[in-house]
């Protein structure tokens, strides 16, 4: 690995980091704007034209607000909580393949920070670490509401991680690899996994909603019962980190869903397009397609949020344990039978 490669990698990491932050910032704006449209309103329109500077204004406000650490809180853990939340949200993007390998001036640039062969497991590990940020923050606040929110977050994540893992197993039986790059390459052109795993995708997206704590599974924050849930006691940028982490998580899980089920950077007619645009602009066009898919998923997250009310907690557990897990297991069995029959009859 030469110096140029290392520099390229660092550049890529920096770009991805900045993109995830900008996406998270503008997700907050998009959320408010989309919520407004769904409710026949206009939405934020004061900061800049159509309010597009709103995220900057909000960020400035967050930085300038007073930093409050409650007297009875554990100061160290109180700060560790949001830091951990944003850290785990940011490192998830390391294994996502953003595009095909492209050539710039004789260099082959891999549009993926690292292609580890257990990419899917890495994502799962990072996602399950993410709940520690919430738990530590909720516990360190020394407040009943925060603690309840944290407990809810933990039990919800544990319940839904099982069905998420099971829904992925059915997919892995078909792909035969844990590397996200290989999974993306297998879906060349229109061979998207969602066509082979529709039930698996539905299970996965439901679990993704639960893992990112989005409505209808936003019980950890649950404004109506728990004030603010785990971030009741947080103010200024520490609160900002929690909110930011939620939106980055949404971005990453949209990227994961797009990669695993919706073909990632693949699109029908990509060979023709690559021939037309060459080895630099062709892959970049694929990246653009990938981001369109991600944005559609983020829009879907928001669309669902402004449509469906929150689950009651026992209903949430019922859905997780009594419906999603059996369905995921059934999906595995069906996938096994289906793929065996297909290979047996030589398709």
């Amino acid at each position: 690995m030469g110096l140029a490669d290392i520099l390229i990698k660092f550049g890529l990491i920096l770009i991805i980091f900045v993109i995830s932050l900008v996406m998270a910032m503008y997700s907050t704006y998009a959320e408010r704007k989309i919520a407004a449209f769904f409710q026949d309103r206009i939405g934020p329109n004061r900061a800049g034209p159509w309010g597009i500077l709103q995220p900057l204004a909000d960020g400035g406000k967050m930085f300038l607000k007073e930093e409050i650490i409650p007297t009875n809180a554990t100061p160290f853990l109180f700060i560790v909580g949001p830091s951990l939340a944003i850290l785990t949200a940011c490192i998830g993007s390391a294994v996502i393949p953003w595009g095909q390998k492209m050539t710039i001036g004789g260099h082959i640039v891999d549009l993926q920070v690292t292609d580890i062969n257990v990419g899917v497991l890495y994502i799962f590990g990072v996602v399950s670490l993410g709940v520690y940020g919430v738990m530590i923050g909720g516990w360190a606040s020394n407040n009943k509401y925060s603690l309840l929110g944290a407990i809810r977050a933990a039990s919800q994540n544990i319940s839904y991680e099982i069905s998420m893992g099971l829904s992925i197993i059915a997919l892995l039986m078909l792909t035969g690899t844990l590397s996200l790059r290989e999974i993306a390459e297998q879906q060349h052109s229109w061979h998207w996994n969602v066509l082979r795993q529709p039930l698996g995708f539905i299970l996965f997206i439901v679990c993704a909603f639960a893992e990112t704590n989005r409505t209808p599974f936003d019980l950890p924050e649950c404004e109506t019962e728990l004030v603010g849930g785990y971030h009741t006691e947080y103010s200024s940028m520490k609160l900002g980190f929690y909110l930011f982490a939620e939106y980055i998580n949404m971005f990453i899980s949209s990227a994961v869903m797009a990669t695993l089920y919706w073909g990632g950077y693949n699109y029908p007619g990509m060979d023709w397009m690559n021939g037309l645009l060459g080895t630099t602009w062709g892959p970049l066009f694929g990246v653009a397609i990938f981001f369109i898919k991600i944005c559609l998923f983020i829009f879907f997250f928001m669309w669902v949020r402004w449509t469906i009310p929150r689950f009651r907690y026992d209903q949430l557990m019922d859905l997780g344990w009594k419906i999603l897990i059996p369905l995921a297991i059934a999906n595995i069995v069906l996938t096994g039978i289906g793929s065996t029959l297909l290979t047996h009859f030589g398709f």
Partner: protein
Amino acid sequence: MESLSNKKKVLEVKPLNFMERAYLPAIIGGLATTMKHFFRKPVTISYPEEKREFSENFRGMHSLKRDEDGKERCTACGLCALSCPAEAITMTAAERQPGEENLYREEKYAAVYEINMLRCIFCGLCEEACPKEAIYLDGDIVPADYLRKDFIYGKDKLVEAPLNQ
């Protein structure tokens, strides 16, 4: 127990059928409903730039009127202050001096006339009480401000602009 009004209706609670228990059809229906609203024209407006039309009997900020010669109509009789249920109006009367005939219609006028807009309930009783047709609540919405003292409106804000200007 026998119900007194006989209006009681016992509702039958049916168990959910399979389609209802599957959540997804209902969720898709809900998504379709919200998507319909997504493209609908907003019912809200950008307030300070756009304003809705007031109804004809809207009661907004007060104005002290002048007569056809541009003289102030108010004679500081105090009936408005007396009728005011919120006690928002206060005034000080003064006698018209020679040479001020073009300013004030009667021999007595209000040297100070103050309405506390934080107290005012915009009931319009001052308007009804006034024997000289000097006060009307025909203005705009009272604007917001930062300090309480700035909500006490004096004659500078209340009196109508002179005619020939």
